[in-house]
């Protein structure tokens, strides 16, 4: 195990950077309540819009709330939203993609339906779905999960289609395996790899998209801190409190960078033919 890890670290230093960065960010933000931080919603009207100083390391916003606390809680929410979108989209994609790939009668209807969803730009489709469901963080998760389901489904379908041709599947069927056993036990475990890689990228896309949605005011509503709505408030106070804009954006960039590095490394490990850089 240790030998394999050192080999991984030597061969893919960027992947290691990604994993370390991701673990660090997840621990720092998920464990937020344990760090003895200020309350992200607690206002302190005596120190409004104060620049970074000893008592507020990153400064305070227009209500005197501690920016460091709000960024950490915002990152926590972003990671939660990203993870939920990833899970929902992957599950829906797994079901739809394996049905489409295995039952050729269902292939046409399912894939054409998903094509329609892909006929709109991702952000606008999410906005349209939120127009139906209403704004807010929970509906944002549902909207983004619907947006990213077609990508996951396509990947599962392609992979199921190719595994279905393999001899061991045929052998299983010859021995009397039914559709459920053939698909669930023989095909899916061998077809799920590309989906796992895609899931990491969906996680990253979802965090970026959610930040954008909550920046324009249709995602998580204030006062709950999200990285997007902190940036929206930072925009209004750009002239007087420029320190507000740095860290929320840097946090988004760090999370997405870490995820992308992990995704790239995982893709290379799973498919040595697709090596890049």
């Amino acid at each position: 195990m240790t030998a394999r890890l050192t080999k991984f670290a030597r061969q893919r230093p960027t992947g290691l950077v990604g994993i370390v960065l991701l673990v660090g960010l997840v621990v720092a933000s998920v464990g937020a309540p344990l760090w003895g931080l200020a309350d992200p919603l607690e206002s302190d009207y005596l120190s409004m819009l104060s620049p970074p100083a000893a008592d507020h390391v990153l400064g305070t916003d227009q209500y005197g709330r501690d920016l460091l606390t709000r960024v950490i809680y915002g990152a926590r929410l972003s990671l939660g939203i990203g993870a939920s979108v990833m899970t929902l989209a992957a599950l829906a994609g797994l079901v739809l993609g394996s049905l489409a790939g295995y039952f050729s009668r269902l292939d046409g209807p399912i894939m054409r339906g998903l094509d329609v969803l892909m006929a709109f730009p991702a952000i606008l489709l999410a906005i349209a779905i939120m127009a139906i469901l209403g704004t807010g963080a929970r509906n944002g998760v549902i909207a983004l999960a619907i947006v990213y389901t077609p990508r996951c489904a396509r990947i599962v379908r392609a992979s199921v289609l190719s595994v279905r041709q393999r001899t061991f599947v045929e052998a299983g069927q010859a021995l009397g395996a039914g559709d459920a056993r053939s698909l669930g036990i023989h095909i899916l475990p061998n077809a799920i790899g590309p989906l796992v890689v895609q899931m990491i990228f969906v996680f990253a896309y979802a965090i970026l998209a959610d930040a954008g949605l909550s920046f324009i005011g249709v995602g998580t509503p204030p006062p709950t801190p999200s990285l997007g709505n902190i940036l929206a408030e930072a925009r209004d106070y750009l002239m007087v409190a420029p320190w507000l804009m740095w860290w929320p954006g840097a946090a988004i960039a760090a999370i997405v960078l870490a995820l992308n590095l992990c995704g790239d490394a995982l893709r290379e490990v799973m498919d040595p033919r697709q090596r890049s850089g």
Partner: protein
Amino acid sequence: MFRYVLARAVQMLPLLAVISFLSFVLIHLVPGDPAVIMAGMQAPDSVIEQVRQEMGLDRPFHTQVLDWYQALVIRGDLGRSYFFHAPVTQALAERLPFTLTLAALSMLVATIVGVTLGSIAASAAGTFLDRAILVMSLVGIAMPGFWVGLVMMFYFAVDLGWFPTGGYTPPIEGVVPWLRSLALPVFSLALLESALITRMTRASLLDVLGEDYIRTAHAKGVGHRRVLTRHGLRNSLIPIITIVGTSFGNMIGGAVIIEMVFSLPGIGRLVTMAILSRDYPLIQGTMLVIGIIYVVVNLIVDVLYVAVDPRISYA
């Protein structure tokens, strides 16, 4: 060629039909009574009834479908926006051209930057320059464009005063002020796609540069630059065109957010207002028009494949 374009255009029709139908049913998918939601919960019954009649929601479903298509196809009518008190087509005609200009300019910048950096990285593969470009593209993909826009606004507009802090100057008032008002938004919007195109160009070009005919070209004495552009880049265009094509849709989506950063008069504010004020006709119209634009751009990409690569047949 013409027949190919025509055939592809005909293939688009079912997709357009579905997109227009989805735009229509959007209002029926809303949980609850759309007339009540649009009029407001506290609205008196008479107002709700009036909204219901204006929207045609009191009529049978099939009549509503027919009315929607009749208004759309024959009169090009998308209904009235409740927020702007104007026809939806008018609201879109005022704001969509701006968003499309922003998206198109950003796509142009992203393509030029991406193809150039990608080619440099591929021809210097393995060197420090290549690594530097790769790291830049990784960071470019990770940073949210609207945040980069905010940071640039602070330094280049607020601090240095090189660009306006927001707002739009139409080209009639001078080309330089026009470009100055667009420079920061275009750069913020182009960042992500530049990085993606850089990575795609590098990967695609590296594949091609490993081919036998590249060695042959070098062997017969063709100059390095010419091998790179004529033999290399020309043959690696297909994946690049694909990513440029899909980037246009992302640009329109990204533009919605960038417009909010720089207070620009595009569909960004329109769509956000429409959602927050539950202006369904406006949302329906916007989705329909964007969907159509997206489908047409995909058609153009398909046609470009054939124009660029004679090996792909017209059939």
